[in-house]
Each structure stands twice: as structure tokens, then as C-alpha cells.
């Protein structure tokens, strides 16, 4: 952490990286630090962990004594404490400081760990996403099956994409009910593999270039494996081969060890392809498995991770859609211009990552390509069963557009519920529509947006405009198919955009956490400072306020000087309060837990704010549940929490207002609810209430609620806050019952340790 430097007693500079025994060149056999590479000088590195932990037992005292005899250590310690230590006090002071440091460092360490893990997983996700994104872009740019297959092969084996050694693709033949090999990619021998890798490495060939080379038929040595693939034909029956099982069960199969694999691997596959760990994923489109993708690392022998399997599975989904699209185009025999329109659409959709832009684009294109007067794109939240308009496009009159939104929602819900397109060629003859609805549109259509099996929304279009005399002005089956293809691409785009936004959100959170971490460090430094300052200020404050009280008491009740003295007393109290808050925050000591009655804490807290309650003429509505379990908590700390929240509530309470204090059991927690009348806190401020140094502008240091939050979190609980119609602000301190019980042992240990620590004193008598 800190790269501190310190001067030894003899003026020699030592750095925190240096071990104390290196500096001292001592060779005391009884010092555990001697020769240890992971033990640094505590005081210089400020790293107390290896030496003294709160769990220090008497056996560790050897360590302690070695250090306390070290000149560097002592002189630095005394300097930082600002006083000389007698021999007797050194060990205890060190132990005490070490304990404080340990707690603080442990907390920081944990925070760092959490961040690091989050960071790594985020990076992985972003990388995977960008790979998939690149592949989709290339794949959806073509409509030829052969090219699509080549792109899939290149994607699976390119080092810049998924990076498997070999891959093979098998497709379902629906008529013959067989799964047959179509294409394979990968070197046929170790030597070839080495040659290709060195070539690729030397040229640093991009993924796009690999795709170009493979689709233009040059470069990659596909022939041998493609011949192998062509020889594979499996009937679509369970137990024939792992590839068939993957197709039938629609799930990936990751075979780590072919010899101990309990499922079926056909002799043909064994002889011709698999030799080691491999993975099979089904190629899916619209819930149907249309083939399988096999990949392995036969040359590099690199183990296949679960993440890679997931990524391959996602790729296979994209591949399935591209293959399906190609087949539909083929069967529809669309004109060249329409195909190219759709290709452009696909590219446009896939290259935009802002959700709003994507939705807009899809809505516009749907209407334009189908020849509809207008369209609405709906987003569907499955968990909440909510359908909301995401984007609109329309050339009709605005009144129609607006009204259509209602009719559109009805249609969208049908399509989403059925998971199938809804086509109403002629609204006027459809009994499902009311007369008003019939007047809104003449012909309507809705298709669901489905991505990887999830319904993410729907597109609705209304009123077809005939493009020629021969064209109908009603929507037809062909239009439905066409819109279906668009919807597939749109669904992927929506899914991608959502994922992208999730990634962005995670990144934002990461930045925030980092900022918080930085702030925490600053606060700790501030804490040390304020502890020093507090002492210097508190002494004179005590005399000023104390004497003012004395004088005030001695004056007659009607003496005008009493008012002035009261001001001095009040202001002194305010300064003392600020000092207390500062110091509280500086102290992050662990809670000392005991079984306590929460109602007793509530009562005492109310008692302690009774003066402020009187001053505000506040009415307290108290409703304490009488059958609450005892909770394991630090009485003083929780009291602090309640007082801080009550003081905050009093600060915002209009004179004569009401404050509600309630305790109750809720599931596995006990809730202490404190609500005050007054203005509601705006939502954006609500999020920042617990941020240190955030203040409303009214007096206060902005630490009260931050401290409360910190303490409750240490108890494994949380503080919730909301506004409702009756109460301006409602705080709820939730303290867990069950986890509380689990921690009882720890508290006992802590008490035991405390008793231990008293021993050295008692033995002295």
C-alpha cells in the first residue's frame, strides 16, 4: 500500500520494501522475522498483518518483543504518537495500534479483492462480447449458406476469435432425418499446425482477414477435414452419437475425457475426428436445432473452459439464425435488391449499440421494408409482464399513430403470448376488434422478437400501402415472413444493446467503487488528523463550556447575561457534536456483540434526544412490538445509529411535527422504523444520503448517516429509506436475526480474548 520511508534511530533511511532483519542485520534466532521474506518492518510499511493480529496469543509475543526492542521501530512509533513510551507501555501500545491497523487493513484488503474479481470478470465479458459482435457482423453480411459455414469455421478456429484448434460442422437433413457432416477446419498434423500458427503470428492476421481468406477459398487447409466431415452421417436417434444427442437435447456436451465418457461416441467419429477433450454445441434457430458444431484443441492440448463452451454456444445461436435466414431467402426467392436491402438492414442494426438508436432504426426499417404506414416497436419485460413502446415510426396522421399505440399493445401482447406472428389482413371483418379499433387501422400485423429463446418484445405495423397496381393493400403471409426475418435480427440487436448497456452500467459501478475506495483511504488519513485536532480543541472547549455553565447557574433567572451565556453553551455543544461525528467516522472498530433487547436501545436513544424533541415540540408516536427476539448487537453502536437517524429526522421536522418510531419483526429481520413528517427528499438525493460528507446544507458534517450506515452494515444489516404520502422520510434499520445468532461464537471469543489481555496486569500483583 503506502510506500513509506522512515529514518532509523541512527538516521539511516529504510524503505517499506526492506525487511527489518535486513536493515538491522541481526541474527537473533528467536525473532520470527529473521530471514522471512514476507515479514516487513511494521512501523515503516504500516503493514501489521504478519506480526500482530487481533487474534494474537501469548505465543506471538516473542515476535512482539523482538520488534519492541528495535530502535527503528521504537523511535518511529514514539514520533508518530508524539510522546515517549515507558518500557511497560510499549508492548501494549503496539498491540493496541496493531489491532486497529489490522481491522482497517483487513477491510481495505477485502474491498480490493472484491474489486479485482469484478474487474476481471468484467474484462472477460467485454472481450467475449466484442468477439461475438465481430462474428455477427461478418456473418449476417452474407446470405450464401456456403459462405456462412466458412465464416463459422473461421470464427471457431481463428486465434483472434474463439481460437480452437479444429472445428467441424454438421447439419440436419429434415427429409432423410439424418445429421450429416458439412465442413471441417484445422490442420491435419502437428507440423502443419505449427506452420500455420507461426505464419499467422508473423503476419498478425486479423480476424476479418482470416474470414476473407477462407471465404475466398484460399489459405486455410480445409479439404482433409471437410472430406472427413462429409463421411459422417448419423441417423437422428438418441444414443447414436454425441453430436446427435446435442441436437436432440438442444444443449452443449463438453467431453473432457473420451475414455471415461458415459454417453455415446460413435466409432466413426472416434476414428475420424475425436482424439481428446472436445465440445459439441447445437446450432439453434427459433427453438429448433438445425445442426451441431464440434471443436477441440487436439494440438495445443489447452483445456476447454466453461466460458469458451458458453461462447461457442452463443456463436452457434448466431450461426443458426444466419443459416435460417439464408434458407428463407432462398425459399422466398427474393429479388436481388430486396436481399441487399435486408443485408444493409442487418448490418445497420448490428453495428449500432445504443438501445434507443437500435429501436428507432428497427421501427423505421420495419415500416419501410414492409411498406406499412407506421410501426411501433414494443419492449417486453418478462418478469414484470410489462409491454412498453420502445420506438415509433409513422407516416400517417398523428392522431392515428397515437390511437394505434393502444391497439398496437393489444396486438403485441397476442404475439408475445403466442410466441408467434399475428396477421390480420382485414381489420373490419375481424370479430376480435371493437368498432372503434376497426376504425383505427385497415390491416395490421405483429411479430414477436425472440432472442436465444427469450421474448424481448414485438413489432407491430399497420396499414399497408400498395406499391403497385398488382400489390395488395392488405398484409399477407409473405409480409409476415419478411417481418419475421427482420424481427430475428432486431431481437439479437436488442439483446446485444441490452448487454452492452449492462456492461456500461457495470463499468460505471466499477468506477464508482474505485472512487469510494480512494475516498475511504482519504477518510482514514483524515481520521488520524481529526483525532489529533480533536484533543487540542476539546480541552479548551470543555473549560469554555463548563465555566459558562457555572456562571450561568450562578446568575439570577432574569439576568440578561444568561442569554449570552446560553449562546456560548449551545455553540460549545455544537462544536463538541461535530468533533464527535468526526471521530466516530475515523473509528472503524469492530462491533462488540451481545444479546440485547432492541426496544431497550430504542428507548434509551429516544431518551438521549429528548431535549431536541422538546425544542422542536415534536410528538413521538411509539409502537414497539413486545415479542421481538433478542438480537446480537453492539448496544452503543446501534444506539449511535438510532440517535444519528433521529437527529437527522428532527433536523427536517417542522416545529410541532410528528415522528413515528416502530419496531417489528419482518421475516428473518427485526426492523426499527423511524419516520418524520416534512418535505420529501428528492430521489436523486435519496441515493446520496449515506455518502460521507454529503449534507443537505443544514448544519451538520454530513457524517451522521454515513456512520449509521457503516455500523449497520457491520452488523450484517441494512438501512432502507423512502418517502411516502404521509411521511416525508421513512428510515428502516433492518437487523438480521439468524446471521446474528451465527456470530455469537465470535463475540464470545472476542470477550475471552479481552479477558486474556488483562492477564499481564493482574499477574503483576
Amino acid at each position, binding site marked *: 500500500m503506502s510506500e513509506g520511508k522512515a529514518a532509523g534511530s541512527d538516521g539511516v533511511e529504510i524503505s517499506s520494501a526492506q525487511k527489518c532483519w535486513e536493515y538491522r542485520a541481526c541474527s537473533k534466532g528467536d525473532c520470527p522475522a529473521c530471514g522471512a521474506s514476507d515479514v516487513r518492518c511494521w512501523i515503516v510499511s504500516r503493514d501489521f498483518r504478519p506480526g500482530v493480529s487481533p487474534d494474537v496469543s501469548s505465543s506471538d509475543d516473542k515476535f512482539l518483543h523482538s520488534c519492541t526492542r528495535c530502535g527503528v521501530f521504537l523511535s518511529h512509533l514514539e514520533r508518530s504518537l508524539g*510522546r515517549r*513510551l515507558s518500557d511497560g*507501555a510499549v508492548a501494549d501500545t503496539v498491540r493496541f495500534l496493531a489491532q486497529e491497523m489490522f481491522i482497517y487493513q483487513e477491510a481495505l484488503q477485502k474491498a480490493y479483492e472484491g474489486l479485482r474479481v469484478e474487474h476481471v470478470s468484467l474484462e472477460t465479458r467485454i472481450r467475449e462480447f466484442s468477439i461475438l459482435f465481430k462474428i455477427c457482423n461478418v456473418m449476417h453480411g452474407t446470405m450464401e449458406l456456403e459462405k456462412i459455414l466458412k465464416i463459422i469455421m473461421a470464427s471457431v478456429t481463428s486465434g483472434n476469435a474463439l481460437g480452437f484448434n479444429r472445428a467441424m460442422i454438421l447439419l440436419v437433413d429434415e427429409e432423410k432425418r439424418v445429421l450429416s457432416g458439412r465442413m471441417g477446419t484445422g490442420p491435419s498434423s502437428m507440423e502443419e499446425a505449427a506452420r500455420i500458427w507461426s505464419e499467422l503470428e508473423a503476419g498478425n492476421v486479423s480476424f476479418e482477414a482470416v474470414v476473407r481468406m477462407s471465404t475466398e477459398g484460399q489459405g486455410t487447409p480445409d479439404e482433409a477435414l471437410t472430406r472427413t466431415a462429409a463421411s459422417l452421417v448419423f441417423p437422428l436417434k438418441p444414443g447414436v452419437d454425441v453430436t446427435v444427442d446435442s441436437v436432440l437435447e438442444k444443449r452443449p456436451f463438453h467431453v473432457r475425457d473420451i475414455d471415461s465418457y458415459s454417453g455415446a461416441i460413435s466409432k466413426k467419429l472416434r476414428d475420424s475426428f475425436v482424439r481428446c477433450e472436445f465440445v459439441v454445441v447445437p446450432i439453434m434457430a427459433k427453438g429448433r436445432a438445425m445442426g451441431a458444431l464440434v471443436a477441440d484443441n487436439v494440438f495445443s492440448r489447452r483445456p476447454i473452459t466453461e466460458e469458451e463452451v458458453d461462447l461457442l454456444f452463443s456463436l452457434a445461436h448466431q450461426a443458426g439464425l444466419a443459416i435460417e435466414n439464408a434458407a428463407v431467402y432462398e425459399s422466398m426467392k427474393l429479388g436481388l435488391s430486396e436481399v441487399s436491402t435486408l443485408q444493409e438492414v442487418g448490418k445497420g442494426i448490428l453495428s449500432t449499440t445504443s438501445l434507443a438508436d437500435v429501436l428507432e432504426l428497427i421501427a423505421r426499417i420495419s415500416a419501410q421494408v414492409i411498406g406499412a404506414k407506421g410501426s411501433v416497436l414494443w419492449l417486453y419485460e418478462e418478469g414484470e409482464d410489462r409491454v412498453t413502446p420502445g420506438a415509433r415510426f409513422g407516416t400517417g396522421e398523428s392522431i392515428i399513430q397515437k390511437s394505434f399505440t393502444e391497439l398496437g399493445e393489444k396486438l403485441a401482447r397476442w404475439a408475445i403470448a403466442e410466441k408467434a406472428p399475428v396477421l390480420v389482413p382485414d381489420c373490419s371483418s375481424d370479430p376480435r376488434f371493437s368498432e372503434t379499433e376497426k376504425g383505427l387501422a385497415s390491416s395490421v400485423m405483429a411479430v414477436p422478437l425472440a432472442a436465444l429463446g427469450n421474448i424481448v418484445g414485438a413489432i407491430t405495423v399497420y396499414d399497408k400501402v400498395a406499391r403497385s397496381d398488382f400489390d395488395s393493400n392488405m398484409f399477407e403471409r409473405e409480409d409476415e415472413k419478411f417481418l419475421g426475418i427482420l424481427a430475428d435480427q432486431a431481437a439479437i440487436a436488442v439483446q446485444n444493446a441490452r448487454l452492452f448497456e449492462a456492461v456500461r452500467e457495470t463499468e460505471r459501478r466499477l468506477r464508482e467503487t474505485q472512487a469510494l475506495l480512494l475516498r475511504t483511504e482519504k477518510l482514514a488519513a483524515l481520521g488520524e488528523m481529526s483525532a489529533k485536532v480533536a484533543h487540542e480543541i476539546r480541552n479548551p472547549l*470543555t473549560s469554555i463550556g*463548563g*465555566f459558562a455553565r*457555572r456562571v450561568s447557574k450562578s446568575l439570577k433567572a432574569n439576568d440578561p447575561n444568561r442569554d449570552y451565556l446560553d449562546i456560548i453553551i449551545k455553540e460549545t*455543544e455544537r462544536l463538541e457534536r461535530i468533533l464527535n461525528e468526526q471521530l466516530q467516522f475515523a473509528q472503524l472498530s469492530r462491533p462488540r456483540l451481545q444479546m440485547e433487547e432492541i426496544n431497550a436501545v430504542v428507548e434509551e436513544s429516544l431518551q438521549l434526544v429528548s431535549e431536541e424533541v422538546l425544542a422542536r415540540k415534536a410528538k413521538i408516536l411509539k409502537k414497539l412490538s413486545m415479542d421481538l427476539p433478542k438480537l446480537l448487537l453492539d448496544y452503543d453502536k446501534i444506539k449511535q445509529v438510532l440517535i444519528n437517524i433521529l437527529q437527522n429526522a428532527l433536523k427536517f421536522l417542522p416545529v410541532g411535527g410528528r415522528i413515528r418510531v416502530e419496531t417489528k419483526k419482518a421475516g428473518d429481520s427485526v426492523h426499527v422504523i423511524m419516520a418524520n413528517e416534512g418535505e420529501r427528499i428528492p430521489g436523486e438525493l435519496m441515493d446520496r444520503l449515506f455518502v460521507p460528507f454529503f449534507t443537505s446544507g443544514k448544519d451538520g458534517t454530513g457524517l451522521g448517516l454515513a456512520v449509521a450506515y457503516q455500523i449497520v452494515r457491520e452488523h450484517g444489516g441494512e438501512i432502507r429509506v423512502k418517502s411516502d404520502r404521509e411521511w416525508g422520510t421513512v428510515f428502516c434499520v433492518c437487523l438480521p436475526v439468524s446471521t446474528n445468532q451465527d456470530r455469537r461464537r465470535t463475540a464470545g471469543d472476542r470477550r475471552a480474548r479481552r479477558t486474556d489481555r*488483562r492477564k499481564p496486569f493482574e499477574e503483576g500483583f
Partner: protein
Amino acid sequence: MKTLLVVDDDGSCRKLYESEFSDEGYVVEGASSGPEALKMLEESRFDLVILDVKMPGMNGLETLCEIMKTKRNLPVVINSAYDTFKSNFTTWNAEAYVVKSSNLDELKRTVRSLLEEKPCPR
């Protein structure tokens, strides 16, 4: 009448305590440092000690250790501007820990209850 010893290097504080506790009906004497306090404790009898922590030379905690060597049952109230040591004041064998404040009510309450509860054993 019970006799208190106030140990504090801050003269104003000492004076405040002396006057306030005299009003409460105690005999109060002051010491401005640890060694002075130890000397006074040796010479005369006290029922309770109010002890500041941060003092030049010998600090309050060291003084407390010394006191405990000879007068194990003498109640000592630590009275410090820091509340840092409050979390484990029992380690130092003090009876109570009151953070300094211009409002002396808590300190008075503590002193009173300690003296009522624990009549001086000597």
C-alpha cells in the same frame, strides 16, 4: 466526605473540575502530571481518581498502570478528549471511561455511582 484526585495537565480543566465537584460536596485536589499524582496518592488517601490520558511525560495510561500496582481497588475514571481508547478501557483496569465534554453531567453521574456502589475498602 469523599476525596477526589483530578489529574489533568490542562489547568483550566482542572480548575473547572475542582469547582464543579466541590459544589457536588466532594473534596477535590488536582495534579498536573502523572508523577505528581502518584506522589499525592502515596501521601494521602483518595476515594476516586479522574485521570486525563494525554499528558506530557508520563501519560494517563502509564500513570494508571503505576497506580494499579499499589492501589488495585482504587476506582479510576479515565477522562480523555480521545474516545479512541474507550473501546477497550477495561484493558487498563479503569472503572469507567468518560469522554471529555463541557457538559459534566455524565462524569458527575459516573463518579457518584462509583462511590455509592463501591464504598472505599480502606
